[in-house]
């Protein structure tokens, strides 16, 4: 398998798939997912209702010193996080002020306001460089199931699976294209596509940030907020690297089933199944160790390791991703090398 052959094939794969609609639709979805965070932060920053809905800011601590409730004093999470003193506090006797503040501290200690960010944090969410870092993070992990990686897995299974569906695999291989070379070219192209998608997400996030800081005319604080640009680079490469075993899993599932549909179902199904099984395994002390090293969990850990986290954690995450990638790619290659190639199978 010559490197030049892999590069040439990857180039021609690009020639072919750029004319396909599906990758562009998936990219559009990925961009949409990644931009949600920016605009939610923007709205929350400018609108108290959104802020309270998003961050649980409506939760409040309230104390009343008479039966009618007229002298009640209320403090919301938004007041707490933004260090706003509720009006009327200074008019209360000292003893009641102390009682109220102690109550607020205890209420806050319960974690009632943990989800609520300060205005400064909302602002960082839609200004560069943190908006870019957050977009990439949102792409790789949004909610309980990582939607971005699922899109990448669908793309990987489709890129290989359509060759079976249309019978073009036979046409490609009959001309002397090596099977390993073809698989390597597809893997390379998928990695490059993911990298380009992340670049697109970063650029669009920057454009969104620009728009978000320009739209309200009274905002004069500018596009850039304090943040580390190096974090953008680190999260970029970390996400791209983390996607490798997921791509390999999809390719393996597709060559195993010789079907685009089954490849998607099997690989995405695994991610969902592991997402459900992992918390259950965590209930058992012995199995918890196993759960920590499963594929999706390894991906989550790798992308969640703080940029400034301990080196040992980073190394462990890196090696776990590498091990999964090597094993899954080797398995896919082994299966692909041995399978008979038939005509168009449809899907």
């Amino acid at each position, binding site marked *: 398998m010559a490197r030049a052959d892999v590069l040439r094939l990857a180039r*021609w794969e690009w020639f072919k798939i750029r004319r396909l609609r599906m990758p562009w639709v998936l990219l559009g979805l990925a961009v949409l997912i990644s931009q949600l965070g920016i605009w939610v932060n923007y709205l929350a920053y400018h609108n108290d209702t959104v802020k309270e809905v998003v961050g649980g800011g409506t939760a409040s601590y309230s104390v009343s010193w008479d039966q009618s409730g007229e002298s009640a004093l209320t403090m919301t999470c938004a007041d707490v996080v933004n260090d706003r003193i509720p009006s009327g506090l200074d008019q209360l006797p000292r003893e009641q002020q102390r009682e109220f503040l102690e109550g607020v501290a205890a209420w806050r200690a319960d974690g009632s306001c943990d989800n609520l960010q300060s205005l400064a944090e909302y602002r960082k969410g839609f200004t560069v460089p943190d908006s870019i870092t957050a977009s990439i993070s949102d792409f790789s992990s949004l909610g309980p199931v990582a939607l971005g990686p699922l899109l990448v897995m669908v793309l990987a299974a489709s890129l290989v699976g359509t060759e079976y569906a249309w019978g073009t695999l036979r046409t490609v291989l009959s*001309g002397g294209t*090596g099977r390993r070379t073809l698989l390597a070219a597809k893997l390379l192209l998928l990695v490059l596509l993911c990298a380009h998608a992340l670049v697109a997400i970063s650029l669009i996030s920057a454009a969104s940030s620009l728009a978000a800081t320009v739209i309200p005319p009274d905002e004069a604080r500018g596009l850039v907020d304090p943040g580390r640009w190096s974090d953008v680079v680190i999260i970029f490469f970390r996400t791209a690297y983390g996607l490798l075993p997921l791509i390999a899993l999809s390719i393996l599932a597709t060559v195993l089933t010789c079907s685009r549909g089954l490849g998607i179902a099997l690989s995405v199904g695994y991610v969902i199944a592991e997402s459900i099984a992992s918390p259950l395994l965590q209930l058992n002390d012995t199995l918890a160790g196993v759960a920590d090293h499963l594929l999706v969990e390894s991906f989550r850990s790798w992308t969640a390791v703080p940029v400034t986290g301990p080196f040992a954690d980073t190394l462990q995450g890196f090696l776990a991703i590498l091990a999964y990638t090597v094993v899954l790619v080797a398995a896919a290659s082994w299966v692909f090398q041995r399978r008979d190639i038939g005509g168009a199978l449809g899907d």
Partner: protein
Amino acid sequence: MFADRVYRVLLAAYPREFRREYEDLMIQFCRDRMRYDGGGIRGLLVWTQLVADLATSALREHERGSGMTKGRPVIETESLTKIYGNIVAVDGLSMSVPRGHAFGLLGPNGSGKTTTMGMLLGLVRPTSGTFSLFGSSDGLEESLRRIGAIIEYPSFYPYLTGRENLRYFQGIFERGAPQDIDGLLEKVGLADRGDDRFSTYSLGMKQRLGLAFALLGDPEVLFLDEPTNGMDPAGMADVRYLVRELCADGRTVLLASHILNEVEQMCDSVLIMSNGTLVTQGSVSDILRAGDHLRISTTDDRKAVEILSATAWVEDVEIEDGEVVVSAPRGSAAEISTALGRSGVYVIGTNSGRGALERYFLEVTGDEEGGA
């Protein structure tokens, strides 16, 4: 003798190895033919035809350059077998395809033609047996770069145009230059539709694109599996012409088909398969000769059998299904009629049957239902 000298001059165009082995046999054949056909004007006509055939054949061998006896065969298989579960798709197939020939793989559906081609192209793993392409069993991928193939059904990317499909495959195979594509589209009759999406093509047009694909980079060997499937008569004629032209240029064509007429018209040699096994193999002319039967109805079938049995150039004669079946050289219907007429038996109907190969094919494959 003057005639012998003419034969030798014409045979000089054949490769030396061929002449060493076959020259005397061919001259003897010509002599025998003239002896049977007698003299006079008719004899002169037969002789002229014989010399013309010999000259055409010699010219073709000369043009072919590499000749049928030169070097090792392009494709050789030895006990090639493919078993899917309990189904034996190909059973111990041993064959040899000479360079520069149009070689037909003939057999009914499911006889193992496509599986055989799949194994030769590295798409299907043989269960046992070996094969070699261009005399080498190593480096299959390298050998495949010298082969153009279209298997079973032309499969291309439906969202790309015909031109884009060819460009893509040209790119991944590194075959030829982009400017060749126009010529290829022209050659297969798709010049006007080259910029339309493959998904909009009819089956015949897809086959044409498949041919253009197989011709990318001017390969030495072509594997064509049912190339005329879905084509209109003009398209079929184009394919026949193309195959003959390719062979005349020294290319080797391995053509799988269940259409007997197609194989008969395009191929020099043929291998007949049935249920995965080789039934017979040889040159088309030999097989046609073996299957040369003329079915006639006469005013007296019994007497006709007696007369023809006594005729030297009739190989075999019998009554079958109320007809006299005569095994004799091709084109001898007039002679048979004349021989019978001299004895007062008249031919009232003849049926050479379309395609002697077809009858032979049905006999050897046991597919009397005509499933082929």
